[in-house]
């Protein structure tokens, strides 16, 4: 069992007040809070280890490089990647997806197809729209069912030898659906298509093993898993990353530069142009250590408990409609109250110290799908409690009374 009060004590922000109330932070899908060890890792880096990485001969440069590469090792182990150089440091999930989309278009011909789903975050839609536009390929969309799951039969029918890439989320940030990515990967590979998984909402909630999962690309953000902002991961299989053209250029991604021609460095440097977010990468290791110490499976189990509790309490409020009701769900609850605008609910519960997100969650096609302007979203993390859920439910009830 997890000792949640001990976990909470590691997050300094959780003891702050908001509008005179204890903060209840339920906006974890947007970004999580940070434990003290992550905060300390950044401070310590700057106070004791800071230097630019990779090319320096001097002691600090070596130290910073070792710390930086230690993070890469840690992440490799955390996601079960085969090679260390399959881990590329980016700015975030959005950056990772853009990197792939920008390179992948050079593999595409007119008439080729990319498949995404109706459930995707804008960051896993727009890069593919642009990629298709620039390569003359077609974008195909897997619709979602009323319960928030992808229509898998529709997907199987979409798949063909024209399919070159399937890009879908592991967990929907707007609905919480845990998608059957194993099946999607298997079926996609059977027609020879590559698969990119947007794991932004999954990476600290589901235990990952790239070698088993067999995804060709997997993307996630440190800031959604107790790590710093400005750090993301692109995992890619070695051979595909080798085939992909470089994305940004300059700095460390170069082997030789001259005006008659430039050659590029090997993986992972080929995709890491410019001075990286060194302090962020170094501190990300502490976030992974934090997660590994708790164990992802135990986190998932506790979050499942919170999800069940919050869902059943919420459904006791008359007029609540939850969007996303699939059996396999992450601890994300998107809902509306009949006749009320999500923005109004968010404004009022905020005054009671409760941080929930309202709006379209950067997933406008889903809002269109359900014909709503947005939803109220509760997204839970391992430091949340049933008591907090009670406070939130009461606040929502209060909002409902005020607004009705």
């Amino acid at each position: 069992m997890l000792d949640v009060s001990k976990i909470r004590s590691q997050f300094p922000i959780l003891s702050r007040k908001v509008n005179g109330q204890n903060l209840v932070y339920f906006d974890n899908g947007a970004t999580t809070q940070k434990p003290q060890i992550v905060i300390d890792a950044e401070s310590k880096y700057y106070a004791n280890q800071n230097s630019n990485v990779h090319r320096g001969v001097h002691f600090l440069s070596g130290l910073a490089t070792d710390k930086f590469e230690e993070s890469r090792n840690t992440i490799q182990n955390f996601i079960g990647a085969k090679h260390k150089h399959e881990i590329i440091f980016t700015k975030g999930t959005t950056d990772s997806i853009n990197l792939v989309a920008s390179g992948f278009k050079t593999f595409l011909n007119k008439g080729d197809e990319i498949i995404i789903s109706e459930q995707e975050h804008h960051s896993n839609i727009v890069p593919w729209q642009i990629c298709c536009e620039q390569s003359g390929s077609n974008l195909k969309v897997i619709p979602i069912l009323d319960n928030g799951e992808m229509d898998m039969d529709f997907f199987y029918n979409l798949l063909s030898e024209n399919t070159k890439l399937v890009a879908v989320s592991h967990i929907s940030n707007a609905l919480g659906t845990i998608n059957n990515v194993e099946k999607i990967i298997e079926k996609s590979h059977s027609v020879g298509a590559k698969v990119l998984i947007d794991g932004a909402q999954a990476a600290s909630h589901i235990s990952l093993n790239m070698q088993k999962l067999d995804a060709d690309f997997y993307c996630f953000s440190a800031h959604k898993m107790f790590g710093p902002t400005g750090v993301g991961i692109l995992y890619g299989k070695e051979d595909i990353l080798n085939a992909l053209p470089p994305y940004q250029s300059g700095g460390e991604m170069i082997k030789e530069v001259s005006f008659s021609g430039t050659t590029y460095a090997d993986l992972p440097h080929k995709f890491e142009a410019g001075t990286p977010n060194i302090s962020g990468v170094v501190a990300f290791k502490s976030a992974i250590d934090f997660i590994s110490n708790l164990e992802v499976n135990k986190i998932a189990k506790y979050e499942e408990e919170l999800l069940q509790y919050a869902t059943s309490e919420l459904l006791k409020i008359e007029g609540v409609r939850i969007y996303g009701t699939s059996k396999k769900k992450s601890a994300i609850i998107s809902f509306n109250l009949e006749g009320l605008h999500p923005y109004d609910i968010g404004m009022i519960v905020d005054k009671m110290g409760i941080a929930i997100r309202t709006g379209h969650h950067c997933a406008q096609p889903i809002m269109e799908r359900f014909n709503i302007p947005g939803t109220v979203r509760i997204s839970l993390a391992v430091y949340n409690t049933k008591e907090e859920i009670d406070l939130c439910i009461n606040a929502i009830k209060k909002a409902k009374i005020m607004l009705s």
Partner: protein
Amino acid sequence: MHTIKEIQKEIIEDFAMFEDWIQKYEYLIDLGKELAPIDQKYKISENLIKGCQSRVWLHAEYAEGKIIYTADSDAIMTKGIVAILINVLSGQNPSEIATAKLDFINEIGLKEQLSPTRANGLVSMIKQMKLYAIAFSKQQ
């Protein structure tokens, strides 16, 4: 007709009576509910001011040296604030509107809702109200 300054003063006095945010929000919700409806034919996308979350429709008419604003929003709290802004600016003459300092916003504790970083479209709405005023003042 009161001046913009006088109306602001009244609003500040109104808000001074509230003991907590609940009373204030309830008042805004009431104002929102009572806001004179916008003519449906003006509730069109040309008149839409998009915040990220709540939408505001704004229409302006110019007659006898004064601007009459009508507006709507899909969120009731936003609509309440819209109602106050209309209360302050509607019926005034263009040059007064164009140069008006909306100090009351700070004093009644709505500063946050009306900060440029908020996603409710209200800042753009004020900008749009003033743009109308500048346009109409050129017709004077």
